[in-house]
């Protein structure tokens, strides 16, 4: 199988790999680069567990070919905490009991981050809409929605 070079920044650091053409970004991140924070729940674009941020946009890494990501900046949940301090979203998910098994959590946090980056003061409806592509089988969604709203509030307090 043809190998192709890919090079991007992942959570701020440069990555360069030769990968099999046709490898998904999800598999490249998990198996080649060793960032297992994006999860594979369906590998068909329906669960959202594999969500990452590419150049500021929310993307499903299971439906994204790694070779199309050269030159991009990719963010995953494992890169959110800075200097050991949790991101407000991570803090809020922790504090409001918004994780159970934790499998959907990285994808949820990515989807929520893109929302808050674009809409710092979202309504409940905005949050529901933003998370609608992410499936959680454990929490029942309400704590997750509350976590995102809590993070938004703490963000705006920090900014004030």
């Amino acid at each position, binding site marked *: 199988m043809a190998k192709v070079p890919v090079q991007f920044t992942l959570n701020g650091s440069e990555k360069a790999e030769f990968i099999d053409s046709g490898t998904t970004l999800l598999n490249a991140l*998990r198996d080649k680069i060793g*960032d297992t924070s994006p999860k594979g*729940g369906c590998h068909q674009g329906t669960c959202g567990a594999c969500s990452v941020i590419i150049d500021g946009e929310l993307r499903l890494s299971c439906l994204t070919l790694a070779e199309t990501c050269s030159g991009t900046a990719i963010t995953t*949940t494992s890169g*959110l905490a800075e200097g050991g301090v949790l991101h407000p979203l991570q803090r809020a998910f922790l504090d409001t009991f918004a*994780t*159970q098994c*934790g*499998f959907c959590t990285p994808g949820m946090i990515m989807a929520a981050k893109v929302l808050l980056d674009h809409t710092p003061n979202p309504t409940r409806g905005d949050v529901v809409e933003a998370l609608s592509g992410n499936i959680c*089988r454990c929490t029942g969604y309400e704590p997750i929605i509350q976590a995102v709203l809590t993070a938004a509030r703490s963000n705006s307090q920090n900014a004030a």
Partner: protein
Amino acid sequence: MELRKNYFADVRKDDLHEIGQPRPRSDSPGHVTGKTAFFADRNFPGMLHLKMVRSPHHHARIRSIDTSEAEKHPGVVKVLTAKDVPHNVYTILILIQVGPEDETVLADGKVRWKGEAVVAVLAETERAAQEAAAKVKVDYEVLPAVFDMEEALKPGAPLVNEYHGQNYYLYDSGECRKVRFGDVEAGFAGADHILEQSYQSSPIEHAPTETTGCVVAPEGNDRFTCYTNTQAMFFTLDNTSIILQMPGSKLHFVGGTVGGGFGGKVDVIVEPIAILGAKLTGRPVCFIYSREEEMQISSPRAAEKVVIKDGVMKDGRIVARKVTGYTDAGAYSRHSPYGAQKGAGHYPGPYTIPNVWIDTYCVYTNRTPSSAMRGFGVTIGDFALEVQMDKLARLIGMDPLEFRFINAYRDGDMKAHRQPTEGAALIECMQEASRAANWPVAEKYMAMSSYVKGA
């Protein structure tokens, strides 16, 4: 959270240090930072991928299996069939002496449900394993199948599972689990009203976000580490030990992190064959269900049928209850004989009824084997019982909540299984529910208590 300390104030201990105190969960920091290690987050150099060839038929005899083309496929390292499995016929509950062994690890001579595992292919890549699996040729003679419990119990129905000899599980109490208490026919004879209804449910899939699977690493010395998302670590360890005829000391299971299970990950399905693959190739092996497999192959909650006949008095007392329950095990037992048995214990409900008669059957059909799921054996029963309670209340023109107060068991009441009720708090729960739901009941019910002094 609020603790209602007025309940049972004279009997309760009030030196609780943990209950009512919030505690952070130990695993959630890992969840929010993406550091929690799920089984599939382990990657070993040289890891092989296992793909299963599955039966396209509900019921068929296997005339022959030809793996030669698959073995020649580039990247294929090993192809496993029934003859490679040391103890190929097993059943999960044999560990607690519930037999007979009735399920094959890899099908031998016959398949009994659509999706049953027949041949395992191990290859360098997932894709090679998939392509090779498609090249395995199995010659089937399709047999008549049965999908409905009542059909399966009729004389002359196709026999699903030869290890049982009939299409129901034979308990030591006979063809069903029985509860007998009082004289149910006399109870019906004296009742003001009788209501018989039947209730039915479909199978329910757990659909965990993380699919079922495991990663096995050979450690040398014929010892294997298995990273798995099983919900039943020791059932899996011990059954694997039986299936592979290996002492448990050779098997090191690492689990505890489960990406959603809801009971769907208690069966022993992926680990034995993955460990066998690692043993025969000397290489790490990953066996993970695709989403499609998870939805079609993993065992769902059983379909059930419940027939309830109740005798009730005008004043609200239930005086007789007769229940026949049917649990659709699918083609193999797994946890279903236990599920059906739990139903027998549960059908009297949390009510004090003087005359009770219960039969529950565990029935085999050519459907996906069902197994554990969140209160399996009792959840559907509760649905049926409580709908029945509402219907009974309506029948005698009584408020449905007040009707439950009249029948709720209290300390000292004898249950149908001849176990006296202890520590019941049902009345108190219903009193709180009445307030929370803003569904008021007469003052005399609010004055009741489950706690009976000296009971």
